[in-house]
């Protein structure tokens, strides 16, 4: 150091040391920073996916090799060697040709660059000068001559070029001729090895070679990395950021690399193929990746590429635990939209399909929405697109003539004690009204409600003159005729419908006279009921009545109704009166009421309080509005706006709605709430599947911006189709029939009990292209059996004209029929043709099964519909298609195909010169002719 003594504040050496060490640490931090920036989890997934693809390709290659016909391959190799050998003798010739080609190429190049192109440029320049000179009014004759001569010259050059090119082509052709044999063999070999070569290329592409590492190396990967973020930009599904809409960008496929690739169905996550590639993501599916993307259905942050920040949400605790271990997952916080747990994803369909009656490919969601209607959720809660529907519960307008007061009190007090499968939810004896005081109050409320209902009920008298019935036969009829399509009963375990009430204890509820009258004609009691007439004989009806009346719940019958205390009732009335009249005023008001008036007063208040009119028609509440919160965009409500009370639930939408359905009153836990302000939502006693279905439907109710052109069911025929589907849902057509290949729920019983499915109600898959409109209309108005061998009956519904026309329109439009759907065109048969057709008809033995007017086959159990009705019932085009391949039109059809596809081994080769199409048309024309003649 220096040689002078100076004043120093610090020791230089210490400072240097500190400086050195801190700089080192800074350097390490900078390296750490760069490494962290480079090392991102998604890159690792892409590398893993390359490995996966590679190992799969290696396996496929082995398989491809084993598929090669090696005998042929060896032969081709020999051929190739031979051809190469042969070529040796032509070496001189080839050399000569190659020389010639080189020379010609040179000449062509020269002719182009030295002669033609400069001249062409000169001509263009001269033309410009010519135009300029003309503009300036100069003499241009000389220039014109020059241009003309130049053009001539250029023509000569072009000719020269053309000649040269021809010579060159000849040489090429000569060379190809000489090599043709070798090239052919090579082409054959390549064709044979095409798969093998493709896979080899794939293996190379997915190998970690030197180039791979250089391209993806830290600090070099900005040049041309192979590991890259992948994304789709969804211009037609913008994301609404309130102030502006921004493009939705989904980058999920950065890690979910195989989501749209076939062949990774069993790969480990995140590399699994989408389980419904035909429906989603696939390029030919209805929801292609580049149009729909991922987040519109699954939710989550599309732009994020980290496991946690893209807002994965697990299905359950177990998955959460797994994710925490495997991916370091944390519950998403402060995220635009979190993902829906996979089991609720169907809910998202509502974003675009919300106006549709059912969605078919979302069975859980369809079920959930159906339950929201049939269980009465929408009676209290307003839900977009589920408004103005038939009330879930029976009408109480004439309850006096149907039920005993005592029954109603016991029933409402605890519906499950009457029948565990009952749909009526439990309002009383719940967690927030089971203390002694609340019990007394609820009893008083219940008593007043019943008093009110009976006071406001019209009279009704059923037919008391029913014949005596047989329980055994009633049971058989009940099971076979189709009651089970809507009603459940505990005698049948193979199928349990819940569209209409469960009848397992109906004998404890109704009188025999009522049941008998109701079965014979439901509209006698309730003109608006959806219950159809089953056209039973008096005896059958009496049998069913006897059976149903035998279904009693003894324990329930022996129970006594809850006893209400008038003092408690008066207290309750005062709590309603106090805010209006003050304490003293309330007392005076109360004193002015007699006992009946008090019951009526409290009954009316309680009905309003519990919102009974949401599900039941009640006199005096015809226009009352549902008492629940609107749920139309509940799924996008902020979690912070949900009142979790003091429950220790996780603060998520799914946890809330699950808990609400499990025990709606638990949110009053620990709270001090006045009796009349406590939570009122009843307990629906749902089974886990139904609960999950409803949760799915509720979570799907969101406020998401979707442009009109992306919304299904509102374009073209959509609204007309939806009208028909509404009727189908309202009358539970799918309880029996398969429509759009969904529903037909009663088939469950046939399958479980091993009954031939061809005895089940028909599949209405192609009904629109099959049935003539007039016949369809008449049939729906006046149902009569087409298939007399079926036990199950198509009942007679009370349909309005509008319902019928909606349904028929629906079926026709669905099958692409053209309005007005009525054109019937058939051919005319000549005498000769008629003879042939008749013979063919006999040969095919159609009458073995088909009814033919009055000619009925011996064995009705294998019979088929009346052929004489064909002309009025079926559409001609459909008949031909049906004859060709019934299986295609209706899977499982009993009708065999006589013209097996594709090998046309017809059993009737001799008619119409073996032209099978002609044959089928002739049969059709014959049937139409016969029908008309009769």
């Amino acid at each position, binding site marked *: *150091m*220096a040689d*002078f003594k*100076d*004043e120093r*504040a610090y020791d230089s050496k210490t400072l240097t040391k500190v400086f050195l060490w801190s700089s080192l640490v800074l350097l390490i931090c900078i390296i750490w*920073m*760069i490494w*962290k*920036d480079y090392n*991102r989890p998604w890159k690792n997934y892409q590398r893993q996916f390359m490995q996966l693809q590679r190992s799969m390709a290696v396996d496929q290659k082995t398989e491809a090799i084993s598929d090669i016909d090696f005998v042929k391959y060896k032969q081709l190799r020999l051929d190739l060697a031979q051809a190469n050998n042969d070529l040796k003798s032509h070496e001189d010739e080839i050399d000569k040709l190659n020389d010639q080609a080189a020379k010609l190429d040179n000449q062509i190049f020269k002719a182009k660059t030295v002669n033609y192109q400069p001249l062409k440029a000169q001509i263009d320049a001269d033309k410009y000068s010519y135009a300029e000179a003309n503009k300036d009014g100069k003499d241009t004759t000389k220039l014109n001559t020059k241009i003309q001569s130049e053009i001539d010259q250029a023509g000569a050059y072009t000719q020269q070029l053309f000649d040269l090119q021809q010579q060159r082509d000849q040489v090429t052709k000569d060379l190809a001729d000489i090599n043709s044999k070798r090239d052919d063999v090579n082409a054959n070999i390549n064709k044979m090895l095409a798969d093998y070569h493709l896979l080899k290329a794939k293996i190379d592409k997915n190998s970690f070679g030197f180039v791979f590492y250089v391209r993806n190396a830290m600090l070099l990967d*900005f040049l041309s990395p192979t590991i890259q*973020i992948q994304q789709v930009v969804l211009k037609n599904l913008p994301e609404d*950021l*309130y*102030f*502006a*809409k*921004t493009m939705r*960008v989904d980058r999920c496929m950065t890690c979910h690399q195989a989501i749209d690739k076939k062949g990774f169905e069993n790969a480990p996550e995140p590399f699994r193929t989408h389980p419904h590639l035909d429906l989603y993501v696939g390029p030919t599916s209805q929801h292609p990746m580049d149009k729909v993307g991922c987040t519109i259905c699954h939710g989550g*942050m599309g*732009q*994020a*590429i*980290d496991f946690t*920040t893209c807002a994965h949400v697990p299905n359950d605790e177990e998955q959460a635990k797994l994710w925490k271990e495997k991916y370091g997952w944390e519950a998403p916080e*402060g995220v635009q939209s979190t993902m829906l747990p996979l089991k609720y994803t169907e809910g998202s369909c509502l974003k675009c399909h919300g106006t549709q009656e059912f969605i078919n490919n979302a069975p859980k969601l369809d079920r959930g929405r159906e339950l929201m209607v049939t269980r009465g959720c929408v009676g209290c809660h307003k839900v977009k697109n589920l408004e103005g529907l038939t009330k879930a519960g029976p009408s109480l307008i004439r309850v006096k003539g149907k039920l005993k007061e005592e029954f109603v009190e016991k029933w409402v007090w605890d519906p499950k004690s009457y029948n565990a499968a009952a749909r009526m939810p439990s309002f009383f004896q719940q967690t927030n009204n089971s203390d002694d005081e609340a019990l007394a109050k609820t009893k008083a409320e219940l008593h007043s409600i019943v008093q009110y209902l009976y006071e406001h009920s019209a009279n009704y008298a059923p037919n008391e003159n029913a014949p005596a019935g047989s329980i055994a036969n009633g049971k058989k009829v009940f099971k076979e005729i189709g009651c089970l399509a809507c009603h459940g009963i505990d005698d049948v375990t193979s199928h349990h419908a819940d569209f209409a009430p469960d009848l397992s204890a109906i004998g404890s509820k109704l009188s025999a006279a009522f049941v008998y009258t109701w079965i014979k004609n439901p509209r006698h009691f309730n003109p608006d009921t959806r219950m159809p007439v089953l056209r039973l004989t008096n005896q059958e009806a009496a049998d069913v009545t006897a059976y149903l009346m035998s279904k009693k719940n003894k324990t329930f019958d022996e129970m006594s109704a809850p006893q209400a205390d008038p003092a408690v009732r008066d207290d309750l009335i005062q709590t309603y009166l106090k805010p209006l009249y003050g304490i003293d005023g309330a007392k005076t008001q109360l004193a002015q009421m007699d006992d009946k008036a008090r019951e009526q007063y409290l009954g009316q208040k309680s009905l309003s309080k519990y919102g009974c009119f949401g599900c039941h028609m009640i006199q005096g509440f015809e226009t009352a509005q549902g008492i629940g919160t609107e749920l139309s965009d509940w799924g996008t409500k902020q979690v912070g706006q949900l009142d979790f009370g003091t429950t220790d639930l996780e603060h998520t939408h799914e946890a809330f709605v699950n808990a609400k359905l499990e025990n709606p009153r638990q949110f009053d836990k620990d709270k001090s709430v006045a009796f009349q302000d406590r939570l009122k939502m009843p307990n629906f006693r749902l089974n886990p599947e139904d609960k999950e279905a409803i949760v799915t439907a509720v979570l799907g109710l969101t406020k998401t911006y979707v442009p009109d052109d992306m919304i299904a069911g509102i374009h073209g025929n959509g609204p007309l189709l939806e009208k028909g589907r509404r009727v189908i849902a309202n009358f539970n057509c799918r309880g029996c029939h398969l429509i759009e290949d969904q529903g037909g729920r009663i088939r469950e019983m046939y399958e479980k009990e091993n009954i031939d499915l061809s005895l089940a109600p028909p599949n209405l898959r192609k009904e629109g292209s099959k049935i003539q409109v007039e016949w369809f209309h008449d049939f729906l108005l006046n149902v009569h059996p087409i298939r007399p061998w079926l036990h199950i009956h198509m009942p007679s519904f009370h349909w309005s004209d509008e319902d019928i026309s909606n349904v028929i329109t629906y079926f026709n439009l669905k099958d692409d029929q053209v309005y007005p759907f009525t054109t019937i065109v058939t051919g005319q048969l000549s005498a000769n043709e008629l003879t042939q057709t008749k013979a063919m008809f006999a040969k095919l033995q159609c009458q073995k099964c088909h009814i033919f007017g009055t000619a009925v086959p011996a064995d009705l159990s294998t019979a088929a519909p009346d052929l004489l009705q064909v002309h009025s019932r079926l559409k001609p085009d459909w008949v031909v298609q049906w004859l060709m391949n019934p299986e295609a039109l209706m899977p499982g059809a009993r009708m065999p195909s006589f013209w097996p596809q594709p090998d046309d081994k017809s059993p009737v080769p001799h008619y119409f010169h073996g032209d099978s199409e002609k044959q089928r048309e002739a049969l059709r024309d014959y049937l139409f002719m016969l029908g008309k003649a009769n």
Partner: protein
Amino acid sequence: MLDKLKKKIDEIFAQSPSPEAVKKAIAEGQVWKSIFRHGYPDTPRNRVMAVLSNVFLHLHPVKARHSGVKMSYTWCMGGLSFFLFLNLTVTGILLMFYYRPTAEYAYYDIVALREHVPLGIMREIHRWGAHAMVIAVWLHMFRVFMTGSYKPPREFNWVIGVILLVITLLLSFTGYLLPWDQLAMWAITVGTNMARATPFMGYEGPGASMIQIGGVHLVNGGSDIHFALLGGHFVSEATLIRFYVLHCVVVPIVAATLMAIHFWRVRKDGGISGPL
């Protein structure tokens, strides 16, 4: 063979100049001199030259009070505030390359910085640096107060310091909105709501209702200082661009100017304070 090679290498080493000689050759070469204009600063002359001839160091005096250069005295907080300001300037400029102050893009540009922008960590450095700067400035003021360094002749520099403190808070506050998330938007909403209550200038402030002509309020929700600040009745896209310009252009320029004055006055007022 090997021995020969070894010998050769030794020879070359023997012939080559010593490290000191190399150092000298460099330090006295034309290139070095043209840049630094002085030798290695280990003599008084060179030390003086080091400070005087360097544009970055010339803020300093050549010599300073011994007591003043002690860390325990200054805590280096003023210097750190300045360092953080520079650091924020650099990261801020980098961020401007990736950030668009519009409602469509602002939020997702920040998401992009978090998710995949190379060295998107600069957003973290910028944000934490800003917090650190606020604290550093407070501590700097605290230190200056505790050592009584605002006393004559440094009164005016203290005043500038107070303004710089306010500027620092303003920089941080305007920047707070830019991520355009709920945190940002509502913090700014809460923070700017007070402007509505400015006496006479905010429409919910005392006296504003008295400024009227013919019964028409001149200071109303659409004309008060709150509206001017936000470019609307509420925090909206207009606020975003306003705060962006304030944050990136206006306030930094004011800050830089005042800082220059602040530093200059430190020198002119006698350098780091010390007992008389």
